[in-house]
């Protein structure tokens, strides 16, 4: 053998278990690094701390004072499921901005010359987003509890409701990763993120029931994945869900629809993000 280094490398081709552990370690290192970013970026941090509290108070006390929920029930009970989904939908934009910053600054050259798994850059991002989403969700529910919201279903069902929202948020973070890789700058990523996230969050049953919307808007809103997730959440929390009266399939089967939507988004966006990452970084 001509090179000692070559032997060194070949001797290090370890087994499947060791390689899996190494991969998990890379993912965790990347996720931890993103969480440090989150703590040090005031805008991102506010997305998962102050913003959910403000939105919750704003909707419950300002809009809630003038709203009557179709089919009965308090607006407060109705609002929390929607606020949970809305906050997690808008905060998913952070993935687009963060990932774009990673691939458009010099740090990507460091990552790409280390013996780490390149996939860990994307997976690590999704894990830190997941943890931030759980935290943000708990802030919304905590604020909800403080202003008098109560789930009326069993603890298990409530937990399932939270789980459905978190699954959707995880899928969305992969979608946002794709956008982040398409955009040419972090600002661009933010711009495209807004264009996608706002219609997604607002043309839905998050704040008002879809029944009162013009029929073509209602049709879009009823098939919007955000509506399915919100309905699923309200149903599983045992909170008022006026959408249950809508005939569209996702509104009749909100839990199934929410899970299917999330899995479809994952099935499309995980491979797409990996492909875009490779294209973006191979010069």
């Amino acid at each position, binding site marked *: 053998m001509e090179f000692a280094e070559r032997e060194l*490398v070949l001797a290090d081709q370890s087994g499947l278990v060791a390689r899996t552990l190494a991969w998990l370690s890379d993912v965790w290192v990347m996720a931890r690094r993103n969480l440090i970013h989150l703590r040090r970026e005031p805008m991102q941090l506010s997305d998962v701390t102050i913003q959910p509290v403000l939105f919750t108070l704003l909707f419950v006390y300002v809009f809630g004072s003038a709203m009557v929920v179709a089919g009965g029930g308090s607006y407060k009970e109705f609002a929390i499921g929607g606020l949970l989904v809305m906050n997690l939908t808008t905060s998913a934009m952070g993935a687009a901005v963060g990932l774009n910053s990673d691939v458009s*600054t010099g740090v990507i050259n*460091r990552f790409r010359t280390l013996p780490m798994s390149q996939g860990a850059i994307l997976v690590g991002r999704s894990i830190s987003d997941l943890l931030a989403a759980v935290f943000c969700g708990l802030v919304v529910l905590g604020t909800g509890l403080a202003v008098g919201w109560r789930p009326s279903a069993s603890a298990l069902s409530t937990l399932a409701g939270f789980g459905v929202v978190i699954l959707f948020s995880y899928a969305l973070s992969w979608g946002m990763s794709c956008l982040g890789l398409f955009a040419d700058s972090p600002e661009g990523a933010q711009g495209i993120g807004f264009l996608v996230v706002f219609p997604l969050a607002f043309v839905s049953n998050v704040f008002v029931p879809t029944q009162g919307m013009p029929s073509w808007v209602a049709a879009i809103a009823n098939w919007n994945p955000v509506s399915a997730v919100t309905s699923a959440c309200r149903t599983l929390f045992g909170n008022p869900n006026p959408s249950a009266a809508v005939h569209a399939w996702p509104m009749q089967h909100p839990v199934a629809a929410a899970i299917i939507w999330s899995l479809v988004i994952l099935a499309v966006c995980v491979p797409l993000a990996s492909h875009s990452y490779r294209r973006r970084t191979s010069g």
Partner: protein
Amino acid sequence: MIIEAKGLVKRYGDTLAVDNIDLEVRRGSIVGVLGPNGAGKTTTLRMLTTLARPDAGSARVAGFDVVHEAASIRRIIGVTGQDATLDELLSGRQNLVMTGELSRMGRTRSRKRAQELLELLELEEAADRPVKGYSGGMRRRLDLAASIVSKPPILFLDEPTTGLDPTGRQKIWNIIRDLVESGATVLLTTQYLDEADALADEIVVINHGRVIAQGSPLQLKAATGSQLLEVSLPEPHPAAASVLAGIGAGKVVVSDAGKHLRVHSSNGHGLAVAALRALDEAGIPVDDIAVHQPSLDDAFAALTGKASAATNNEEVQ
């Protein structure tokens, strides 16, 4: 050869960034790739460090192919980039620990190594502050530290001292020399002839994506260079010019009412001593004597027979 490149070509759109470059680096040596901005230095380095795929040609690092065995190469190289490859929001220490962990060194070893490097590179004071507040010199040192966390046997340094003050450069130079002494092989790019001269065993000069000269610093200087000898006298002396004419090559330029004399010389060694001795023998007192090494521009002028791209641009402006 621990690094071997043959016929590397890289195009970006219509621009031929690297045009058929061959390169060889002996194990344990320092090779300096010298050239002006846009010469193709960084692109060449990117191909050798698996960051860019060559459009043609091939290269092997420690026997591994840069395209097909990139993963293996990444285990044994350290790289510093021209735009520091650091995480701005992490502290210096966190950057180093992260690099260690991603090099599969484990957390404990990575922490210990980070502390060691922070001390070595005099970054302890700022170690726990975010990198975004670091000065240019601190960034370079931290970037260099990050590239040697796992003690890789082969180092690629892209303009490691550009923008640093003389003390900062000297620090980086000393670290690079120590690394080579402990067995590393270094390929570095630089815009500065004196840097290549100070560090490299072998210099490869590139311009417009092509190798235009290569050799040891001595060989290169002999081929490129006129040094400039400058002498200041306390008072004018009628024989001074003719004495210096015998030392240098070409015309002696006299200014400052005969107190300041300049002459070019192609001979590298002992120029100042020879001049001083000759002036002394002629009984001419000397205030100051200086030898200016040929600049990169001079080198290009000599190597290509015309002024470098940088000089041309200045003239156009």
